């Protein structure tokens, strides 16, 4: 790109002509000591808690600890250029980040600086990073679903718009994948997505951005990252910064989804900061306000009342406990703050059940309110059925002789587990989910070999879409029907008919394949 020199010169000339000389009045202090991302500053007697201060070279800091003789400042940026004795000036402003359409599709750091090499974020809209969540008068109960596109979750632990659903599980159990699938599924649903990476490997973040871009999800997504190599202050601030960007859309009547990946790393960063600031350590050396650190963040997720524009902010915090220890300090905190959790287990993951969700201990406290009626009807007893299956399965391993009823329950359970498996980055439409789960729960799969269940499902959905689109439409229309019960009964009858037709096709296909291989 070439610049027109005369154009720029004219801009600069007007600047100089209009420049008014003023005395620069500022409150100053001097750096006493600096290191590990924090500085102690002497002076700044009028600085407020949480106020931004500026170091030489344009590095910003946040007044964190106000003490009798000095101010503890966390440095948001490169602290290596700051020296003892440097002048620090207060700015009289709180930390804020750029917001609005300009941040969509970008990969930013927690201060809103670009990390994607596409130049600065051009917007004058800013929003303070710390924002007190509105009270109950401004909210209304969560009632619309936020489809994750994952059968197991949408059927058993549905997430509503404005809900906070924790994704918890050991390392390598597919936590991020669940979140990414959810973001991918928001395509065309008018939900702005924000993925906040805290303390992650930069390679993982690059991978996530790659996947989002590849699936066209970057058109409505912003990635905010403070990687493992970022100083602790940036890791601590990142979730609040992401939340501020998401809130902009919420308070303008839109819907947004934010993923915090992950809060255990943020807790560690906050612990580091607090210890460096010499705040007294509490349990597991976390500071006393670690609960507030998470609760004030997650309380910002909400469904606004109609008078306030009915926007929503859904939060999917991710948490990685150590060695599956969910009863440790921080996990119990976060579990108690959120409206439910999706618990991912390594043994299920390695047994090939992916997403490796443990249906027994995963819950959604919003429940059926966050499901469409059809799904609620179809998947009503699924969670209990699966839990009963798990109990029976353990029992059956003892090799006892089983009665026919128990055996059929086991067979049904095995097929349902198989049916709820889903590949990564392939979120499903809610109508497809309803068709699949209906086929499973109503026993249409009982005659199919367990190893062929997924093949059956894929073929069945293709069949429905290609040959029976009117039934798909009928199922989708149930939600808005005046007499839901009647519409649902009609739709299921239609599905039953279609399944019977498909069953014949599938059987002949299998027979042909077997004949060919023989």
């Amino acid at each position: 790109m070439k610049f027109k020199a005369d154009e720029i010169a004219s801009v600069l000339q007007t600047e100089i002509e209009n420049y008014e000389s003023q005395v620069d009045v500022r409150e100053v202090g001097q750096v006493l000591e600096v290191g590990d991302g924090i500085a102690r500053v002497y002076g700044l007697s009028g600085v407020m808690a949480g106020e931004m201060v500026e170091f030489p070279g344009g590095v910003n800091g946040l007044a964190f600890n106000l003490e009798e003789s000095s101010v503890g400042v966390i440095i948001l940026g490169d602290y290596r250029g700051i020296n003892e004795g440097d002048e620090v000036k207060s700015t009289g402003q709180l930390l804020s980040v750029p917001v609005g359409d300009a941040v969509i599709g970008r990969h930013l750091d927690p201060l809103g600086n670009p990390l994607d090499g596409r130049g600065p974020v051009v917007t004058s809209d800013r929003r303070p990073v710390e924002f007190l969540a509105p009270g109950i008068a401004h909210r209304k109960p969560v009632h619309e679903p936020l489809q994750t596109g994952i059968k197991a979750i949408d059927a058993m632990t549905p997430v509503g718009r404005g809900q906070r659903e924790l994704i918890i599980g050991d390392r390598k159990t597919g936590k991020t994948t669940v979140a990414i699938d959810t973001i991918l599924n928001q395509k065309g649903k008018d939900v702005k997505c924000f993925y906040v990476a805290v303390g992650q490997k930069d390679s993982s973040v690059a991978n996530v951005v790659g996947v989002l871009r590849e699936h066209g999800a970057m058109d409505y997504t912003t990635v905010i990252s403070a990687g493992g190599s970022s100083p602790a202050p940036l890791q601590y601030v990142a979730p609040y910064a992401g939340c501020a960007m998401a809130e902009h859309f919420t308070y303008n009547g839109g819907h947004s989804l934010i993923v915090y990946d992950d809060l255990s790393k943020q807790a560690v960063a906050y612990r580091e900061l607090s210890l460096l600031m010499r705040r007294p350590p509490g349990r597991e050396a976390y500071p006393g306000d670690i609960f507030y650190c998470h609760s004030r963040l997650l309380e910002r997720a909400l469904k606004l009342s109609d008078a306030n524009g009915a926007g929503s902010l859904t939060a999917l915090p991710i948490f990685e406990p150590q060695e599956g220890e969910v009863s440790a300090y921080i996990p119990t905190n976060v579990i108690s703050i959120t409206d439910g959790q999706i618990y991912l287990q390594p043994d299920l993951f390695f047994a090939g059940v992916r997403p490796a969700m443990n249906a027994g201990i995963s819950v959604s406290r919003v429940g059926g309110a966050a499901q469409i009626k059809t799904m609620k009807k179809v998947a009503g007893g699924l969670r209990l059925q699966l839990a009963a299956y798990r109990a029976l399965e353990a029992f059956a391993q003892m090799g006892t002789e089983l009665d026919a009823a128990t055996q059929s329950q086991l067979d049904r359970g095995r097929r349902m587990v198989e049916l709820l498996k889903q590949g990564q980055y392939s979120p499903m439409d809610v109508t497809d989910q309803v068709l699949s789960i209906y086929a499973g729960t109503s026993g249409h799969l009982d005659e199919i070999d367990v190893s062929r269940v997924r093949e059956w499902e894929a073929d069945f959905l293709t069949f429905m879409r290609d040959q029976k689109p009117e039934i798909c439409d009928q199922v989708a229309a149930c939600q808005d029907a005046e007499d839901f019960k009647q519409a649902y009964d009609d739709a299921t009858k239609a599905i039953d008919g279609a399944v019977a037709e498909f069953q014949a096709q599938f059987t002949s296909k299998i027979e042909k394949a077997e004949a060919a291989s023989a």
Partner: protein
Amino acid sequence: MNAESPQSGYRPETVLDTDAQQVGKLYSRAFLGAAQKAGQTEELLEELGSLVDDVLDKNPAFARMFGSQVMPHDEREAMIDRVFRDRASQLMVNFLKTLSKHGRLGNLRAIRTEAQDLYDQQQGRIKVIVTTALPLEDEVKSAIADAVRQRTGGEPVLIERTRPDLIGGVVVQIGDTLFDGSVAARLRRMREKMIDRSVHEIQSRRDRFRTTDGN
């Protein structure tokens, strides 16, 4: 600090130890209280100043021993008696003994600075640090003093500093508030503003600055 900074080459004075300063504040309050009770504030302050300037600064070996905790309190007390009994006022000797008892003789310098500051404050005197590129002329000095007097109602005590990299103008610091009227600051602000403005113009109307004839 990066090389572009207008302040490069200039190193501000390093700040004192805040812990010592806290201790100094506490003892200076006690010292001033005692001195005022005796009605000899000015004299005692001067004596304390002279102790630091004329004794400790000129005899570093003595200052080190004086401030160290190696010598037991009894011996230190005897030494204070031997050295200062006839050469200092009784109140000063008592004060030194009290400091010795609490092991705070090493904080004498901080106590002196704090005592001076506290006394100045009590007298309504305000410390004003005036930094200029060239040494100040007397008329300018009195003009600044007048201005401060009018604004704050206190009696200014000017502390002058010169910093050639300010280029021109004057920087006045009262307490933690800095009034920066230097040419360097104005140039810096103008530079920032022009960069901001140019970036804004370029980003908001990219086409305007781009020529069509290739990259």
